[in-house]
């Protein structure tokens, strides 16, 4: 049957055959043919936007007309460096992102270890589903749910009142943001740590015990060093996702808890100062760049 088809459509098949034979002889051309469309997309949409952002950071806006003046200036960065408000916001953003990352490492490690080493296949699948379930729900809905828990007349304070404890006024504070971010990004930490622990052959733990090491030595000398790449990989997620967020600060953080993202949003939407927004947006980009280069050295990219 296929033979008949080949004979019927001889001329086009010959062209196709010649093309594939040519690509076979020149594998570089074949690779190029594969890569040009996605690379073109990547360069045009992603890199161009990033370059525009970076270039725009060195422009400024005419105070009267509101139009962008295409003249090089460091004024935006000077404002950022000298204004205590913006410095506070930048430090708050990076600080909470770091706190969230550390919290998630501490919470995720035992979960990941339990799932990878102790739980049976059935329990493991159940735990995985439970862990990933929130990711499939709306981000906004989950943040709102936390608002209901942490608000002054929320579930938390009601529960504290029921057992006779004073209310914990953590709604609309940095602590609330830290809690919510830690909850929301936790699965992104558990998954790579789980993958890292699962990759360690069980015989290594037995060998450690066999050679006379107790639990603590096995943990510090064998488990932890082999799982560090997974921890770093997870921290890339939790850190960068927190760093770039601006919804949770609005819904949970309230007035005194702006993130870099909120300032960027306000300057793009309300103040219409795109160059300043661009300048502020480069800060998390630079922080992430430094972070990723450290992570790469520690071998975290093999865990992604």
């Amino acid at each position, binding site marked *: 049957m296929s033979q008949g088809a080949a004979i019927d459509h001889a001329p086009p098949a010959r062209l196709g055959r010649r093309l594939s034979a040519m690509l076979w002889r020149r594998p570089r051309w074949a690779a190029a043919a594969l890569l040009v469309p996605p690379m073109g997309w990547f360069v045009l949409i992603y890199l161009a936007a990033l370059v525009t952002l970076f270039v725009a950071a060195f422009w400024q806006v005419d105070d009267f007309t509101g139009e962008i003046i295409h003249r090089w200036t460091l004024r935006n960065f000077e404002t950022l460096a000298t204004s205590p408000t913006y410095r506070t916001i930048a430090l708050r953003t990076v600080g909470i992102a770091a706190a969230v990352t550390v919290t998630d490492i501490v919470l995720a490690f035992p979960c990941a270890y339990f799932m990878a080493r102790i739980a049976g296949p059935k329990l493991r699948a159940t735990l995985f589903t439970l862990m990933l379930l929130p990711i499939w729900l709306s981000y906004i809905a989950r943040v709102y749910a936390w608002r209901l828990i942490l608000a002054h007349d929320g579930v938390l304070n009601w529960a504290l009142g029921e057992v006779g404890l004073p209310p914990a006024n953590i709604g609309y504070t940095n602590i609330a943001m830290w809690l919510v971010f830690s909850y929301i990004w936790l699965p992104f930490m558990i998954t790579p740590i789980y993958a890292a622990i699962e990759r360690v*052959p069980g*015989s*290594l733990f*037995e*060998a*450690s*015990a*066999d*050679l*006379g*090491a*107790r639990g603590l*030595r096995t943990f510090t*000398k*064998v488990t932890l*060093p*082999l799982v560090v790449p997974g921890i770093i990989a997870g921290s890339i997620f939790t850190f960068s996702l927190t760093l770039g967020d601006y919804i949770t600060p609005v819904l949970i953080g309230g007035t005194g808890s702006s993130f870099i993202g909120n300032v960027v949003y306000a300057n793009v939407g309300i103040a219409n100062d795109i160059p300043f927004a661009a300048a502020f947006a480069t800060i998390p980009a630079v922080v992430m760049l430094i972070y990723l280069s450290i992570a790469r050295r520690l071998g975290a990219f093999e865990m992604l």
Partner: protein
Amino acid sequence: MNPAAAMRSDSAPATGEPIVSLRGVARRYGDTLAVDTLDLDIARGEFFTLLGPSGSGKTTTLRMIAGFERPSEGMVQIDGKDVTRVPPYERDLNTIFQDYALFPHMTVAENLAYGLEAKRVPRGEIPGRVSDALDMVQLTDFGHRNPAQLSGGQRQRVALARAIVNRPAVLLLDEPLGALDLKLRQEMQRELKRIQAEVNITFIYVTHDQEEALTMSDRIAVFNAGRVEQVGSAAALYDRPASEFVARFLGSSNFIERDGRRLMIRPEKIRLAAGECLDGPDWHGEPARLTDAEFVGMYTRYGLELRDGQRLIAHEQNLPGFGLGVDVRPGSQVALAWHKNSVCYFDKMDAV
């Protein structure tokens, strides 16, 4: 004298007491019985092999001695002390794992030092002991390498060095040569025997390879379906198998019905001749028909049919002027003979 050997003979006075003994040890996983009530005594300095097909309980037994599995019943003793509830890190033994289990984030030297550090050997002593152990496995200059940079055979040696550097009373080996190719495996078999003689440590060796077991062991325990079928020297197991399973598992064997019993004769113990049947007080002889002949190189494999229709296989060495020679055609009548000491009888009840 080798320092490791000197150390051993000091700390372990030579007595008749077994170094490892299992008393009524059983291991269940849910409803499945992996090891059935087992009694075993392993003597000091012995090369003892647990031999059996996969799933026969030999590895579970080894893991109970190591302390990775706790027996459902019974007691494990090491050097006269009950260690049934003692964790692996407090047992005076070391294991060589099937996959070697070398720590990938440490160099070879760091792998070797790991056990010494865990046991709090004085810092100053460690480098010397590590390099002695590397010398012993002929990897003197490999201390700074990573395990990933080594070949399979070299990793095997590192695993061995990492275990013996601790000078344990007992070394457990879980199919350590299974991942190596034939030539390397034979080389390592000799190497293991050499090192065992040098350090005078008791070796408990798990394998499913009967030839490996026969050539290396002082004594062998043959496992089948969670039970030990027989314990004995290689020659005893081969020449006097206690059960049909042992006879079938070690080497080749013929089974025929004789006088209401099962008779077992090894193929190489049957002698063939073209002439008269040899029969006497020591030798049994009878005629047979040759059904086929295969030249195997070292020997020729003959298929035989007895008068009552039962079939036998005979192996004859290809020596000039001996046996049937090459002139024999399938279908011709031959005379077979075996020494009466070469046969074993089993009750029909034993039939597997």
